[in-house]
């Protein structure tokens, strides 16, 4: 049997293609990254691939991040996948924001996100960057 560590996988859900490209360039240094450009696509990919962490934008045209978060947390198969919500609206996710979802998402980040801060916050939930697997 050979030990082959696999990289942990992050699902990045954001309709801003530029933000996705810039953020992926940072995350790929440590993690595998899957992208979804809308809330509906994000839910579908989360259900099929079960990522290790989800970065979830708030404002998206088809389905906003709050609704996606609620659905994910209501799904027993995905409820324990950590979610970090993202927004370019300062204070949108503060304590007086949409409390129902903020209290379920594990963390939030305000854009723009500095690379070091992004990796630090993601790393809190995905220590090591790798998961063990045995073949």
């Amino acid at each position: 049997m050979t030990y082959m560590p696999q990289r942990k996988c992050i699902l990045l859900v954001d309709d801003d293609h530029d933000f996705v490209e810039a953020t992926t360039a940072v995350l790929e240094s440590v993690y595998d990254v899957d992208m979804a450009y809308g809330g509906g696509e994000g839910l579908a990919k989360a259900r099929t691939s079960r990522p290790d962490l989800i970065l979830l934008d708030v404002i998206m045209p088809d389905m906003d991040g709050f609704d996606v978060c609620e659905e994910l947390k209501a799904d027993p198969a995905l409820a324990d996948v950590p979610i970090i919500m993202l927004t370019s609206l300062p204070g949108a996710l503060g304590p007086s924001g949409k409390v129902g979802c903020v209290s379920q998402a594990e963390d939030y980040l305000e854009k723009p996100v500095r690379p070091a801060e992004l990796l630090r916050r993601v790393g809190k939930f995905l220590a090591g960057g790798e998961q063990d697997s045995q073949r």
Partner: protein
Amino acid sequence: MTITLEQLRHSDIFGELADDELAQLVPVCHRAVYREGEVVLAEDAPADWLFIVEQGVLTLEKRIQLGRRGTLRTATVGIVGPGKSAGLSALTPSHVYTSTAVCLEPVQVIALDARTLRRLLNDNPRVGYKVMSVIAGLARARYKSATDTLAYFVSLVSHELRAPLAAIENYLNVMLDGFAGELSDKQQRMLRRSALRVNDLRLLIGDIVDLARMRPEQIQADFEVFDPGEVGADSIEDVRLAAGEKNVRIKIEPPKFVKIVGARRRLRQVFTNLLTNAVKFSPSGSTVTFRARYEPDAVIFEVEDEGIGIPPDDQPHIFDDFFRAENVGDVSGVGLGLSIARKVVDAHNGKILVTSPYLDGKTGTRFTVVIPRNLLTPEMRRSVQSESK
């Protein structure tokens, strides 16, 4: 040509009056014609006439000057077309025009002498009540239109401008941190300058939006338990690039931090604004010090610089909206950072003080922020209220 009752009835102000009531107004009217570009009434002039436009269009303009040193500009605040009135201040104290009406094209008006009109309305309370009710309705409609426009603008600016700026800043940060390949020294410098300018723009947009909607209860609704050390570290990171560009050293004197209650994001804004100013107004090679200490009832934060200082005459105004001190020269800014800081600190029942100079024989400024330690989050407040029942 004589002015008829029908012509007066077509106006927005007098449309509700009966014939006998309108008949009383005819003697105080006369007709006037203005050329394109002519000023019909001027801002701050005594409101001696009320005008009803019969033909043509007037624009209403206001003078705007941000702060003491801002460039004087004019802004169009309304349009007055046929059947509409200009110069409502003729009937409302302090009887001084609040804007300037300029002809967009040749204009024909019915002008009513204000003094005589006011006396007439005073002597006929029934007519006076009808006219003032209409004016109140017009004022309400204009106010609603202005606040709707402001709300739309704030909402638009909040996301539609911020999102693209955030995307630009993300790309710049990713490149500067080496995630997109190696950069030459020249590329590094240009990208650093770009990141600084975009950051300034993003903060300015944030300040303008905040000014439009910052109320104490909104800030207090965001109170949470947090570590002020993390907020301080975030603020230092916010100014690290600008300080590096100017070769200004940031010295930190932290205590052993204990969690407190406050609006975390807003306090970060306060410290970032103070540090940004300190760096902006400090010479190259100088030091900005950021320290904190705990007292039984409050946490005290201080930001000190070795910069140009604030003239004594300006210090009482330094927290006013759009105020900039006399000695700022060409340093960029619109004068919102300190006024926002003051609003945030006030919402925390705290204090913000300025001392300049703070050392004998040396220029420089110290800002002191005092945040009480007895604040409650919304949940704590609800818990206290239900226990007391």
